[in-house]
């Protein structure tokens, strides 16, 4: 019964704020979306690459005729990975990869990326039945496949885009949206930057 009482106490305390101060403030909302901003996709891509690299992320551009599977296999060999876990979505689904079910022991996690933000170098991953959150988190190496047309200019544009895809009806909002800007990092020991303290120490993007 305590709990109900607390709710009442808190609300009562707050309701004593003078009514003239309540209500929605008059000044209008400001938006930070600049529609004039040129949406030059190649500039967005270059900005994303520069910013992602700045935070110790790694970027591979898939050549015109290059095959994604070759690139991935090359990375798997490079890391000498025994087991790989990946999202069961296109284009990964149709690649011939062997899946490791125990994520905790996978050497590499491969995911897609639903969006990316150019001016911060950020990948945006939505969770879902085929898009587990842990794939980009538990293994020491995370590889994300990013389609270049999904890169947006800045965080305001990203939220506008999310708003649009949910048609402002957020009842269907996915359980977890993860923004990932480079590998896991800390500066807790004498301000020295170290990587991979909890999440992946290597964050790699393949742009297709």
């Amino acid at each position, binding site marked *: 019964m305590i709990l109900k009482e607390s709710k009442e106490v808190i609300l009562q305390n707050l309701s004593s*704020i003078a009514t003239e101060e309540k209500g929605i403030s008059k000044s209008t909302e400001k938006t930070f979306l600049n529609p004039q901003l040129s949406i030059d996709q190649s500039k967005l891509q270059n900005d994303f690459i520069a910013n992602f690299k700045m*935070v110790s992320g790694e970027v591979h551009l898939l050549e015109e005729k290059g095959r994604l599977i070759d690139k991935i296999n090359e990375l798997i060999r490079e890391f000498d990975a025994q087991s790989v876990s990946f999202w069961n979505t296109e284009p990964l689904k149709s690649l011939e990869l062997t899946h490791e079910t125990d994520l905790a022991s996978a050497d590499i996690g491969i995911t897609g990326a639903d969006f990316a933000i150019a001016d911060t170098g950020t990948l945006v991953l939505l969770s879902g039945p085929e898009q587990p*959150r842990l794939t980009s*988190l538990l293994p020491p190496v995370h590889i994300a496949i990013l389609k270049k047309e999904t890169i947006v200019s800045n965080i305001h544009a990203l939220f506008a885009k999310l708003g649009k895809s949910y048609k402002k009806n957020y009842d269907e909002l996915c359980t*977890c949206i993860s923004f990932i*800007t480079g590998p896991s990092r800390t500066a807790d020991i004498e301000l020295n930057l170290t990587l991979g303290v909890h999440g992946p120490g290597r964050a790699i993007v393949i742009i297709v």
Partner: protein
Amino acid sequence: MITERIDFKKNSAEALKSPKLKKALVNFTDRSRNSRKKAISEVSEWEELRSEARRIKEQVINNLDSYLLELEESVTRVGGKVHWAKNAEEASSIVVNIARENNVRNVVKSKSMATEEIELNRHLISSGINTVETDLGEYIVQLCNDHPFHIITPAIHKTKEDISKLFSEKFGVPEYEEPQELTNIARKELREKFLSADMGISGVNFAVAETGTITIVENEGNARLATTYPDIHVAIMGIEKIVPKFEQLSIFLSLLARSATGQKSSTYVSLITGPRREGESDGPRQFHLVFLDNGRSDIAKSKETRESLYCIRCGACINICPVYRQVGGHSYGWVYSGPIGAVITPQLNDLQKTADLPFASSLCGACRDVCPVKIDFPHVLLSLRQRVVEKTKGKPNPAQFMEKMAFRIWSFVFSKPFYYNLAGRMMVFLQYFYQKENELQGLPYPFSKWTKEKNFPAFSKKPFRRRWKEKYSAKMEHQ
């Protein structure tokens, strides 16, 4: 809760003794200031973002009751459960009860000031529940039974030698020197804790009223693990953490990382909406959100100091503060330090026990200038000072009596040219014993109160009035 009076002077004197600490502080504050400055210079609309964030926060705090109800409804709609806690004990027992009901043995925690504030770890551990801090800095602090030194980087007061020794003692590993090696050890130790945890506890950076989404910002990934791997996720938020609309998050996220660490974005930002849904293979099965009041609704009632609740805990005011730079985090005696500590600690605790804190500032206003939500620190500090003085009114107070007398004499002397002149001349003689070069030192009581802490400039043999006269008359003759 604070049980003993915070003696800011004594604490600072203690802190000033350690040259190691001093070096770490200067180093750290310099670096944070510079990277923040650089990061915000890249954002052309920085000032507009600050104004808009302040406007939103003002709206939230003025209408907090309806926003809390809206948030509760949204969280419930997406399958989570909301708990209301009016104070620290209640919040802790809510969490302990959730743990008990679900037979929880092992808890992993990510960094959260709200849980520090309510001393949640102590409650969980004394109820027989293993509780581990997983933010590297917090983990180090917990291993040595210490308190965090800064809200963003809790262990800046520990050297790598300290940490190396600590790890070697606790885990029986060699004394590694390299920070990366130490980090790797922590990863291994903590990964096991995550995989065996049945409950994860986190704080909340922002909670969106319309969607029930909580946002957690971090660099390490421990908060992601703590909120994804265990079956139960409990998030604890101060009731002021609300943002009305989903899209408004972009404003606060733009401000937070740049203000806190000078990053364009923190490494990880998680937007969590409810527990795992059907078909999903990970994410917690239960999601609990605890609303923590603990004095906040009282702050909201005061028009003068209400804006203390706009704070988004970025730490920029701490890094810029010339007082913090000298005396460090522990001098403030509680979980919040620097200007935000000086403002929030006295309002969330007994004012008499925390009366030193509003005075632990020179009112230079640097904090106000960097604050992403433009909290007017000098104004809030002054009104808190006023509150302190009013609280002690009526009680015989020798310091106040002396101050009153001094001002009486001062106003008498300063308003009569004859006495003013006379006093000036007398000082030139009287100061003889105390003068060292151009400063007075070691004056007798009550002036010793001043000279103990700073030197007083000596009175000039030739007062300004005389010099002015000479100069003026010489000029007149010239013409």
